């Protein structure tokens, strides 16, 4: 986060707009909200979200957070579903290339700011990196209590019994906790928080992560944060502990048995294969392996 060194109010490559689109007052307001969010881990701070030139639900919250912490010497990576080249990731990356002229990258370790939708990169993050999540519904209690006035009170009083009622129902009816993504977590032992619709596979990566994790919900006008090295526990029962997804297969391209896999339908006769959802991670692994090696078959072992 090198916003302090950012040139103030100089136009980016797109003339007519301020650096990274938002005006400096708005950025300051958002940075103040971020500071508050970092000070109260997992607490949803209301902020005066602006109308962005991208539609609500398409990452406006994440974009505002990124725009506010972005400096001229930052390197930005944008992923959607783990991939750098999905249309929405491309669109947001182009937005910042045009309005801020910052360097962009696909390399996770090179990026100082990573904006993401629905995934946490497979490669471990390090201190100094900022992970910005796009959040559609920031309120984990929304499905139990649609009323903002009541859900805020439940947070204030830490009345979270109803969250476990939901998990209880899952087990009673399905024999297991049936929440597969946006799996609720408790941050720093206090606030129950929505991790955004990342698969629960990624939940453990949030725990004690050295990077700053910032969450922006544009339509709902909320920002929340998980500071570095903060406890993040996924809600569960002692006798039904939290578990992540597993696949019997490995990635058909790089052979990884440790990454989150996307299923790809290859024909209309039931043929399908699995590939890493994190495209950069997968490409790195493919590049590192001997050129002659054949793609991994389903029976293939994992590559290390």
């Amino acid at each position, binding site marked *: 986060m090198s916003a302090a060194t950012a040139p103030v109010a100089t136009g980016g490559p797109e003339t007519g707009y301020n650096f990274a689109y938002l005006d400096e007052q708005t950025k300051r307001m958002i940075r103040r909200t971020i500071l508050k969010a970092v000070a109260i881990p997992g607490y949803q701070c209301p902020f005066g979200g602006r109308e962005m030139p991208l539609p609500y*639900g398409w990452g406006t919250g994440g974009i505002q957070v990124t725009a506010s912490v972005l400096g001229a010497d930052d390197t930005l990576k944008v992923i959607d579903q783990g991939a750098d080249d*999905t*249309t929405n990731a491309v669109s947001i990356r182009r937005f910042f290339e045009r309005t801020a002229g910052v360097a962009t990258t696909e390399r996770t370790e090179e990026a100082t700011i990573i904006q993401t939708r629905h995934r946490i990169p497979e490669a471990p993050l390090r201190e100094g990196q900022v992970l910005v999540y796009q959040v559609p519904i920031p309120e984990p209690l929304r499905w139990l209590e649609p009323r903002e006035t009541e859900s805020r009170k439940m947070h204030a009083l830490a009345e979270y019994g109803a969250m476990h009622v939901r998990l209880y129902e899952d087990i009673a009816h399905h*024999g297991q906790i049936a929440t597969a993504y946006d799996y609720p977590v408790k941050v720093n032992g206090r606030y129950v928080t929505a991790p955004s619709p990342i698969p629960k596979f990624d939940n453990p990566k949030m725990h004690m992560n050295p990077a700053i994790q910032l969450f922006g919900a544009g339509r709902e006008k909320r920002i929340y944060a998980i500071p570095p090295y903060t406890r993040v526990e996924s809600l569960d029962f002692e006798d039904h502990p939290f578990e992540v997804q597993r696949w019997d297969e490995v990635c058909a391209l790089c052979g990884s048995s440790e990454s989150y896999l996307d299923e790809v339908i290859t024909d209309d006769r039931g043929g399908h294969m699995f590939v890493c959802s994190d495209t950069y991670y997968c490409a790195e692994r493919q590049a590192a392996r001997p050129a002659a090696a054949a793609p991994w078959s389903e029976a293939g072992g994992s590559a290390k």
Partner: protein
Amino acid sequence: MYVAVKGGEKAILNSHRLIEDERRGDRGIPELSIAQIDEQLGLAVDRVMTEGSLYDRRLAALAIKQAQGDLIEAIFLLRAYRTTLPRFGASVPIDTGRMQVRRRISATYKDIPGGQVLGPTYDYTHRLLDFGLMDDEAERCQAVSAPAEVDAAMPRVTDLLGRDGLIEEETAEPDETPIADLTRDPLTFPAERPLRLQNLARGDEGFLLGLGYSTQRGYGRNHPFVGEIRLGEVAVEFVPEELGFPIELGEITVTECQMVNQFKGSKTKPAQFTRGYGLTFGHCERKAMSMALVDRALRCRELDEDATAPAQDEEFVMMHSDNVEASGFVQHLKLPHYVDFQAELVMVRSMRAAAGAKEAAE
């Protein structure tokens, strides 16, 4: 061998070219000008300015052209532009009592000081397609020049009622009270009326129309009468700090609807009529009326009425009235959800496997 799909960037650029091409359509047909849209699709411009909350006919017309006539898309374009504008300050509240009225009707009194002025309205047209309009060369009729002197003094009907104490008083917030600004601060609940009115003014016409209609059908009934609808031009004044007195910046066209509603009275208030208020840029009568109905419905709390209907539920109404928010979130379902869907797939498969195993064991 499988290769992951690439080329999102190129696809986006090509898609942009396609819409540009489609927007222009058949090159043999003259291109629409902004002035044409402004002049000939004026009501669309009015709606876009109202819900885009920016009074600029030229930019609204541009947005309509750019959006190929998709008004919600045009509203979005205008809103996104609006947020980037610096703000100099707040104008003096407009005074619709000093409006140069072009249309003014009341459903509560047959005759009112200043008279009823029908003005331009589709109300009494027969909705027959006018095939004469197919010919774009034909001469169009000219309105008979300005109707015989519209009365300059045109008191608001609600003020007339107020003189006899028959309608609740409209008390202005004291000058010191900062007025909440929906476009700068996040919405919080419970919301006071100024904030609710801001939200309704920007709200989607269709959504408010449906809600207003629902109150008439019994879902939060409030016995409305159109006290007055007036359309015309009002001056916008601003007090520059260095001058200390208001100067006129220009004038804008607005539609105002004052709904008069029945009220039985409560433990603290004697029976009185109550108000619902609607105001729009330009000529948006349907919107102004719907807004007034919903405004009145949302006042149930202060008037000690039971809140039982959707139109009386401020969280429900205010959280869902904005079409830019609604449209974005509904349409975001088009974005890839591979990861979440995969998570569900794994879940459903494992549940089915567990069920299968259980059945086999039994």
